[in-house]
């Protein structure tokens, strides 16, 4: 049996915050603001715990004799140096910006660059993997949009530019809206399951 205290806290706090979204009573609104403010601070704390967790995992890995330990050492080095420099001088100091500009941005932007190859590869294989109407529609749309996003050597294919704008304005909006509405139904269901105590991801068994 789970500890009922935790469930009660989750449900109680949740209901107050939820009602605060819809009902405009001063007391409720103030209570909601305070509860959310605390939650915001706690989320930042979990972020720090995440960093500590990362550190511990890789510290353990780097101190045991295993083949991937060099990766963990690299991670720890990156983490400690950044914490030291940015923590001491401040995150927007030129020293911190140096690390950001010459280590973080090159790696992340290159990963994003690799993504283009990965995505083209996925696009090329899609038809073979799932030969159906949806894949054809997907690929045809992607190709038309791609062609019309770039300057296309200054060549003007009549109708194609208009088609691109129309797709972006009409059918893509319809699809996106349908998906978003469906997703919000899913979100409400998942949230309500927590608020009625059916799902209890917090510990306390």
């Amino acid at each position, binding site marked *: 049996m789970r500890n009922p205290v935790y469930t009660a806290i989750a449900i109680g706090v949740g209901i107050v915050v939820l009602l605060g979204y819809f009902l405009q009573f001063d007391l409720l609104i103030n209570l909601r603001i305070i509860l959310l403010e605390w939650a915001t601070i706690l989320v930042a704390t979990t972020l720090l715990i995440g960093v500590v967790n990362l550190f511990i995992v890789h510290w353990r890995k780097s101190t045991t004799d295993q083949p991937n330990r060099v990766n963990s050492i690299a991670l720890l080095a990156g983490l400690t140096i950044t914490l030291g420099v940015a923590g001491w001088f401040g995150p*927007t100091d030129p020293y911190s910006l140096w690390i950001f500009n010459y280590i973080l941005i090159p790696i992340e932007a290159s990963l994003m660059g690799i993504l283009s190859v990965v995505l083209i590869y996925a696009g090329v294989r899609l038809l073979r993997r799932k030969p159906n109407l949806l894949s054809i529609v997907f690929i045809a749309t992607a190709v038309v949009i791609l062609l019309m996003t770039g300057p296309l050597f200054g060549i003007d294919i009549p109708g194609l530019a208009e088609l691109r704008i129309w797709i972006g304005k009409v059918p893509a909006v319809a699809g996106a809206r349908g998906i978003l509405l469906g997703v919000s139904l899913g979100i409400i269901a998942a949230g309500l399951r927590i608020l009625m105590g059916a799902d209890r991801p917090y510990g306390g068994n």
Partner: protein
Amino acid sequence: MEEIYCPQCGKTNPIDNKFCDFCLAHLHPQEGGSADSESISVPGIGENQNGLGGHDSDSNVPDWLSELQQSKEVENEEPLDSDSELGKPADAISDWMTGVSGDGEATIGEFSPAAPFLPDQEINESQDIPHWLNDALIEEETQDLLEDERLEEVPSASEEKDVSQGDSSPPKIRDETSGDRENAGPLAGLKGVLSAEPGAARVRKPRTYSAKLKVSTSQRAHIDLLNSLLEDEGQPQPLPQRRSISQQHMLRWGIALVLLMAILWPIVFTNQEMPLPDYDEGSAEVNRLISQLPENARVLVGFDFEPGLAAELDTAAKPVFDHLLSEGALLTLISTSPSGPILAERFIQSFQADQLLIYGLEYVNLGYIPGGAVGLLSFIENPQGTIPFTIDGLVAWETDERNGLPATAGISQITDYSMIILLVDDPDTARMWIEQLSPTIINPQVLTSLVLITSAQLEPVVRPYYESSPQPVNGLVVGLRGGAAYARISGGDDFPGKFWDAFGMGTFVAALLILVGGLGYYVIPELSRTARGQEKVKR
């Protein structure tokens, strides 16, 4: 009936048995294929020995000895296996699995027999079932069969009689060892299995009872099955998928090469610039709004993108900010992602060469609003209370008691800003900003306008907000194309031409690759399959 003693457990077996019925050790060292024996001994790790030349190099070494060597090496490997990831094995089975399947490709990568010939990746990709899965399967099969055997071996009345003629009955032997857990050899990790100690083989006198009585048909069937399984596994795999894997590699390499060439070409060789886009309504609207800003207008700028997209958003935003700063706007920088404040600072620094921007006077960096939509809403409702300090700890706002920074002077609520510009790469973040801001700014009395500079991927998400009426988004610069259009509209000729050329080439080649490559990749195998089918029919 001729019989043979097992060199490992000392029991008798029919002469034509390849393996001992009891401990699965090799009965004929010189005949047994080494691959077989190793597959049994310790899958995964046992295979390694093959690569290291354990058996092949010296077939005279008796099996039990080589088994012993192996088991020692296996023991040495164990620290490798008990990686911190693994759950602490709580029972014998998970313990056994831990030992068997190893953890991490390190084991496979380093010791796989194929390692000298193929790079790691090839091994991993070249088989339908990964090594570790193979090993686990073999071991599991072995385990199942052995367990079945044990169950079925509960002696029937006649068997009991026969067995009693010997010195001791098999169950008794088992009892002797049942408390121990094997830590080496083929049955590592199992409790209550027959002793594999070489000493036992030497000390104990061979039993003299007929094996015929012991091996039931079902056992025989199981053993045959096991043998055939193991032989199959021991066979070198023909790597049926290898061709298609290398095909995939080739495809990847091909795509990368063509794409890089297409991008490099205009960057390195050509000077012929592709035409900037003619006109873009969203960008034109942004241009108009900025031109209409009052003197020293306060502008709130949200930097909400990931550093990976810095190239796209920086380039798209550059012409807009050139224009904005030339109008003398004072900037307040903010973000809802932790990397945002640093990206903001970096972006502002990129203007310093042309135009000196003094911190606090012309711009101020408020840093990061935590808590996603909740935090953002609280900032919109009460900016001063939510972020009282700048990222470097200065008091950000002017209050009755204290002086704030000039860049934020006169701002007490969000609608005091003349314009809010948002640089964003994520649809959820964009929607979050728009949805949270729109109740406040869609108000005829509010003069604050919201302008979005977004990554190209966001167009279908943000365009409806721009198109709808009332308009929650008043201007829209989408991706590199939007930035190029803005540069053309504002007359700024400093839009990086090579960038735009490479972009034109890149998008064209990408579209072509997907279209032609996709069709080719689909059609060619289909054609060859049809051709193969026709050949078969002819035959």
